[in-house]
């Protein structure tokens, strides 16, 4: 049965469907204009996500339990990474140090091996090792699970008798160690006097010059913090000038070698004035001198 209603003819030809041309509502018009505002768009693109992230984080970490849990989780992760076997240090090796120094170092660096290398404070350790007087320099590194220390020790050059006892000093006057008595190190020369420890290089050069007299030398004494006295056995002293003491000493040595100055009975050789070296004789020698002079002058007794 066919439909009773007639179909309307399809409209062909010039007939077309009217193009829709809807007007935007005020709201959508304003919205579009708002979205075209550069500042607003920037706010939307940057400000809104930032706000959301901050707000989410703020809400989540608002409670103390979650905050603690998060901190815990972070520290656990950190610990897990730090204690991986690749990062563990199990040994310490000290090279270039004498046994006493090595013992000292082990004392001042109390590390319980094995330990993670993240827990080792190498700069701090280096500073504390350098505080040891006997250590000139140290380099620390970690290699293949071992803490390597390359120590450069100070070598004692002189024995210094100061206010606080007898100590060993190196070439530059740095303290190396304390010794109970001067006799502990008879191989090293002795220096004494106030300020002597600050002029160790000069003392050493004087002592080097005085090498021909080495058997007689007792030590060097700093006088008035400005010049040296070379003290010899038999209560003899060579008083050296402030300036150029080495040259003065070499003059004395030359005199000794030619005129046997030091084997004579004198108490002091005063070289403080360069133009006028002076001798002080002992009492017996002085009497003898006077007697000889009197004989020479023909004076009667």
């Amino acid at each position, binding site marked *: 049965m066919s439909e009773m209603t007639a179909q309307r*003819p399809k409209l062909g030809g010039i007939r077309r469907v009217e193009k829709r041309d809807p*007007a*935007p509502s*005020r709201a959508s*018009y304003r919205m579009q*204009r708002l979205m075209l*505002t*550069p500042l607003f768009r920037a706010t939307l693109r940057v400000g809104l996500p930032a706000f959301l992230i901050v707000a989410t984080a703020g809400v989540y970490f608002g409670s103390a339990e979650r905050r603690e849990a998060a901190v815990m989780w972070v520290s656990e992760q950190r610990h897990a990474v730090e204690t991986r076997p690749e990062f563990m240090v199990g040994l310490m090796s000290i090279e270039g140090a004498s046994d006493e120094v090595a013992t000292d170092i082990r004392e001042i660096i109390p590390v319980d091996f094995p330990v993670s290398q993240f827990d080792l404070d190498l700069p701090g350790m280096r500073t504390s090792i350098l505080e040891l007087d006997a250590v000139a320099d140290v380099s620390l590194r970690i290699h293949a699970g071992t803490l390597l220390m390359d120590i450069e020790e100070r070598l004692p050059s002189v024995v210094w008798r100061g206010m606080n006892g007898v100590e060993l000093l190196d070439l530059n006057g740095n303290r190396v160690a304390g010794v109970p008595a001067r006799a502990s190190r008879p191989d090293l020369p002795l220096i004494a006097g106030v300020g002597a420890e600050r002029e160790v290089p000069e003392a050493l050069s004087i002592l080097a010059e005085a090498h021909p007299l080495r058997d007689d030398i007792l030590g060097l004494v700093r006088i008035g913090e400005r010049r040296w006295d070379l003290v010899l056995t038999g209560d003899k002293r060579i008083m050296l000038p402030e300036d150029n003491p080495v040259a003065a000493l070499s003059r004395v040595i030359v005199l000794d070698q030619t005129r046997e100055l030091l084997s004579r009975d004198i108490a002091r050789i005063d070289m403080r004035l360069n133009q006028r070296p002076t001798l002080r004789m002992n009492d017996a020698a002085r009497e003898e001198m006077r007697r000889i002079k009197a004989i020479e002058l023909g004076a009667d007794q």
Partner: protein
Amino acid sequence: MKDLYRSQRAMRNMRQAAIERGVVAVLDVGSTKIACLVLRFDGPDHTAANDGLGGMAGQSAFRVIGAATTRSRGVRFGEIDAMQETERAIRTAVQTAQKMANVRVDHVIATLSGARPRSYGLDGSVELNDSIVREQDVAQVLAACDVPDFGENREVLHAHPVNFALDNRSGLGDPRGQMGTQLSADMHVLTVEANVVQNLLYCIKRCDLEVAGIANAAYASGVSSLVEDEQELGAACIDLGGGSTGLSIFMKKHMIYADTVRLGGDHVTSDISKGLQVPLTMAEKIKARHGGVVATGIDDRDMIEVGGDTGDWERDRRTVSRAEVIGIMRPRVEEILEEVRGRLDAAGFDHLPSQQIVLTGGGSQIPGLDGLATKILGQRVRLGRPMRVQGLPQAATGPAFASSVGLCLYAAHPQDEWWDFEIPAERYPARSLKRAVKWFRENW
């Protein structure tokens, strides 16, 4: 009148601000369509520097980056008839253009095609204080023009100084700096109905837009459709629009007369609708596709399906010959052109040295119109299309967009109007700071 003076001044400042911001829209509110073009100003002319063309009157300074048209709703005779509808139509056009341009538009320059414009030629003269013409003297001579009574409820839309004369020398374009004793000026003033302007401004304001200028549609069409020589030597631009037909007469690059005939393409459409007993939309299509004003023999055999939607077979399958359509259209088009002829005669168009007539607007696309217009308006008739501007879509280059394009040119390079000159000093309020500064500057 003082109010409008100030608001025009404010609009001019706003236009300047909009151009500095870089984006301004032009809005052509017509009776059949509403067109919106978004212009982007890229600073000073970049072509000027390298090819020696010069400023090109600001035409190379902007680029059309968005264009949209929409069917006009609620506008009749170029005047707003239903405000809500018009506002929605403006919103549609602006939104689409903004979407295309992808920028937000805050300032628009609008046209007004109806509102019964009336032209006045004013003149005034002043004695110069010192023998050199200064900016202030120009302002004074413009202020000295004796203003006739425009009538109730009318406002000045344009006030172009068209001519300056110094003593016995006339035809000066720019008298500033010249020597003389008496300066006189001719000014062309175009007044429109205040209510219509206010309605349009209100409509635009309702769309959250700021009005940066307002221009007569016939003037804008003339700016874009007349070539430079025609503007210089004297020509009339006839903008055959949908609801009204605007005409503007140009001479020495200034508009000297403008008027509107309240007849247009819509009347042709309604004639067809009545004559063929078809709906208006159908009539519009028949006019656009098969319309014409000169019938030939073949048109009798060119049958057009008129269609219909009533369900009555006999009625819905009617056909008419094209000759019949032409027979309906021609008298109405003749009437429009004769009305235009009357206005031109009243304006004294036949005294111009050159009497070029340029037909533009959507109505000028009727085939054979130039032949018909030649018979009515005189021999020197041509069909005009708006000049080309950068970035204008192909769809918007037709004569229907003459006033839109003209508005673009107006936005880029407006002619000096009365309110662009300094306010005459004696019109300042008594304790004006500016006046005090001026006095100091002159005396020390």
